[in-house]
């Protein structure tokens, strides 16, 4: 809705200068639901807000400030726990970033963007093309490699074993003293047991073949996704030992609210956001920006 006003103004039109009332809270609830935050997480947020309002009468502006704080605290909690507020690969050692997610989420594009960023920042970077399944997936990631000047390790055989590609990519990374190896994987829906087993196998190979590497396992979530994102995070977590999330397509009008529920329920930090199809359209995640965008329709 293009004409949706700033939430504070919107609430003021409901409550005037007075304290936040039930009608206003209902309005906030609708806003959260329309941002895909989900019924359960929305209930939690609204209850927390209402508890506060029971203790103190708050005018719209202060209530919204408090609401934003609830949301930011939810998003920041896992980052605080991880003691890794700035998310960068460690220099002069092998970092392996495994990029996972359902079909079409934006994995390969995100790899292209990260490779570009890493190359610009002076990392020795390599890409492993472990999507051996989808039509022209290897060609796609090779073009991204060319764009960023990063080599791609791939297997030209049709339907090659993705775990073998990962094995080869780690060998190459070790031989070349690569600092960041990005592993592209095929899209898979989390209810496909054989495909999730295949992903677990890839993860095990990384653990075994690169025991001293700094491993990050990232789930790519599409911001237009609804509540299924939560299921994805649960199952991918088990299969690939996720350590974080990348939220893509935030240049759309979707808010990516399901990420809030994912962060809260699985304790996974959001590390990057994707906001376009271009090579530069990747940004570190900021809870401040995310919450402002979420509430300012």
């Amino acid at each position, binding site marked *: *809705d293009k004409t949706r006003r700033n939430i504070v103004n919107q609430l003021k039109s409901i409550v005037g200068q007075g304290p936040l009332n039930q009608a206003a809270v209902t309005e906030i609830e*609708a806003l959260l*639901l*329309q*941002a*895909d935050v*989900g*019924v359960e997480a929305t209930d939690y947020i609204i209850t927390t807000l209402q508890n506060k309002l029971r203790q103190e009468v708050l005018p719209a502006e202060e209530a919204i400030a408090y609401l934003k704080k609830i949301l930011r605290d939810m998003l920041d909690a896992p980052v605080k726990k991880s003691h890794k507020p700035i998310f960068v690969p460690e220099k002069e050692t092998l970092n392996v970033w495994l990029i996972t997610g*359902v*079909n*079409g*989420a*934006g994995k390969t594009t995100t790899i*292209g963007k990260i490779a570009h960023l890493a190359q610009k920042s002076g990392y020795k970077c390599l890409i492993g093309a472990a999507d051996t*399944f*989808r*039509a*022209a*997936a290897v*060609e*796609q990631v*090779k*073009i*991204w490699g060319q764009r960023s000047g990063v080599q791609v390790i791939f297997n030209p055989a049709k339907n090659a074993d993705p775990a073998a590609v990962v094995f080869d990519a780690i060998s190459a990374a070790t031989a070349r003293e690569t600092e960041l190896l990005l592993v592209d994987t095929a*899209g898979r*829906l*989390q*209810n*496909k047991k054989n495909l999730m087993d295949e992903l677990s196998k890839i993860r095990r190979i990384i653990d075994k073949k690169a025991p001293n590497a700094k491993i990050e396992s990232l789930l790519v979530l*599409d911001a*237009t*996704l*609804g*509540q*299924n*994102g*939560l*299921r994805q995070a649960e199952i991918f977590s088990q299969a690939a030992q996720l350590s974080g999330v990348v939220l893509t*397509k935030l*240049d*759309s*009008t*979707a808010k990516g*609210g*399901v990420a809030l529920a994912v962060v809260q329920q699985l304790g996974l930090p959001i590390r990057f956001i994707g906001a376009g*199809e271009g090579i530069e359209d990747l940004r570190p995640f900021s809870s401040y920006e995310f919450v402002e965008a979420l509430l300012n329709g």
Partner: protein
Amino acid sequence: MFEALADRLEGAWKKLRGQDKISQSNIQDALREVRRALLEADVNLQVVKDFVTEVETKALGAEVITGVRPDQQFIKIVHDELVQVMGEENVPLAQADHSPTVVLMAGLQGTGKTTATAKLALHLRKLERSCLMVATDVYRPAAIDQLITLGKQIDVPVFELGSDADPVEIARQGVERAKAEGVDTVIIDTAGRLQIDQDMMAELARIKETVQPDETLLVVDSMTGQEAANLTRTFHERIGITGAILTKLDGDSRGGAALSVRHISGAPIKFVGVGEKVEALQPFYPDRMASRILGMGDVLTLVEKA
């Protein structure tokens, strides 16, 4: 994770033991459960509101059926309404009087347009309708390669002019080629685009204007959340769609997007994608989708009794 709506409705009704007739006051808990279930299934909030209002009206006007518990009767009303909104029966793909039939594919990035293009071509080939696929996605890396690879898999030719050509021109020449060769149906794959991207939407409008498709299919990912309503509205207003394909239904999403797409556009969902392989395309059945959205696969038998 999701309780079937039927269980929850039964729960809502138990609180009102002894009441055997649907009334304004005893229906509120049940309506709240319906609202919650639909939201959890990712039906758009505005669509949920319209739907719940309609269900309330129908439920209050319903005749009492002896021997049927009110919760059973209520769930039948909900289910029937869902089926009705989604279109009573399956609607097949358009076929022009004079070939070629022109089908235009459209949608957001990564929803499954290119895959669905190949799936449709294979589906038509099996019906002995010859096909040509046209590759107009000059933006996404290797998009043309992807369609060519799929074309080889299903033995259907692909028309392309490389990635330096203008998509409108590719589409125009693709349809010309289909005419010249007497092909039955030409399917035009397009690049993914956000409905708020003015330039890309204008390009799509020009393609449509140029090829005058018999069918414009919006390809929607069944995992889409609240955004399904917004994107459908804009694609429909700006481009005009005649149907939709719902993809990735082989996942475990509830697929509430289906209701939003249908409610907002009025256009039928014609096919569903149920896998990555080119064979994984099925006709859309509203009643199955209704049960899925409500999370009540096995309740159908119960409903049939009512």
